[in-house]
């Protein structure tokens, strides 16, 4: 297979990588770039553990070919905290224990941030529908919804 040479922007930094045409963005993030925050739960778009932003849209990185990201802007969970300063969502998830094993958490945080940017004051139902593509096998979701609401309230007040 002829390799592709791709230039892209990841969390605001220029990134270059060489990949096989059948590698996904998730493969490249995890295996070539050492960005292992995005997880592979299913590889088929069902679990959302691999969620990233691609040109400002929430997507499953397991369903994006790495070759498609030439010239694109990719944002991953690694770009969410500002140095040691956690994003409000990250901090509130810890405070409210909205995670157990944590496998789903990076994807849920990226997805929740995208929701709050679009809708700073969502209802519980809106949060549940928005996160319907993010599966969690541990928490039963209630703590996640409550944490998103608490973070949203805090973010609205600043």
């Amino acid at each position: 297979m002829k390799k592709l040479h791709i230039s892209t922007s990841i969390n605001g930094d220029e990134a270059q990588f060489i990949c096989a045409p059948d590698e996904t963005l998730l493969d490249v993030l995890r295996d070539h770039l050492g960005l292992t925050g995005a997880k592979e739960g299913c590889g088929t778009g069902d679990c959302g553990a691999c969620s990233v932003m691609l040109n400002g849209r929430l997507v499953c990185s397991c369903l994006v070919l790495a070759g498609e990201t030439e010239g694109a802007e990719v944002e991953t969970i690694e770009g969410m905290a500002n140095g040691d300063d956690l994003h409000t969502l990250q901090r509130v998830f810890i405070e409210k224990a909205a995670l157990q094993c944590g496998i789903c958490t990076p994807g849920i945080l990226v997805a929740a941030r995208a929701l709050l940017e679009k809708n700073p004051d969502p209802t519980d139902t809106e949060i549940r529908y928005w996160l319907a593509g993010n599966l969690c096998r541990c928490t039963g979701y209630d703590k996640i919804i409550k944490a998103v609401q608490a973070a949203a309230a805090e973010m609205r007040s600043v």
Partner: protein
Amino acid sequence: MRYVKPENLKDASALIGGEEGISRILAGGTDVLVQLKAEMVEPDLIVDVKHLDGMREIVAEDGGYRIGAAVSGAELGEHTGVKALWPGVVEAMELIGSTQVQGRATMVGNLCNGSPAADSVPAMVAADAVARIHGLAGERDIPVLDIPTGPGRTSLAKGDIITSVFLPARPDHASDAYLRFIPRTEMDIAVASAGVSLELDADGTCRAARVALGAVAPTVVLVEAAGAALVGTKLDDAAIAAMVQAAEATCNPISDKRGTVEYRTKTAGVLAKRATLIAYARAGGQK
């Protein structure tokens, strides 16, 4: 496998036309990549078309809208003009998958993947949508209805690329609706579905009706007799019953873990009825 981003449509068609192995056009990839991962379809050539001229645009045209083939569900849902004119088509597209899938999935990919349960297709068929195709011999327009030919199969020839879907203008007092039944509230494949588009006279009498069903036959079906049963009525009980009967009579589903033949048939009739009533109310009809 090769991944290619051709410079123009002509090159794209020629590339696919000249490929001896398996080729796939890539839109949002939410079917193509799943099939690749599952080793169901392992293409030798993937041709990305999302960057080509007009593919990501929604343009007003002759009172209707031309929707580029690479417009995602999320982009379509944010377009107030299309949503106002064809709410049923937009709600059908928005039902597909999760927020993440919406960020990528396209109506055209949904159509060309050829699933009889594809959610946007009954709505597009009810809307009498027309696909514009760029092929080896140039450009042509084909009704969406004529594109699926069976599960996973379409009438498109090698080298054919859909560039846009046209949703036509509509008179006053006209609207549409789409409903599907799934056993969960999100992220599942339709057991049965119905798209209905209605045009009314100012007094609420139905002047034209198109009823399309999904997941109850090898392809999405347009049930002409169901539409005809509504025309000339104000959707009284007898007209609705005749419409449901025509819809049920057309059903030729499979039995599987999602539903038996009887269940799918009955559900399709119920959904056709409910979608009809929603479209009627949206069109300003009062019951």
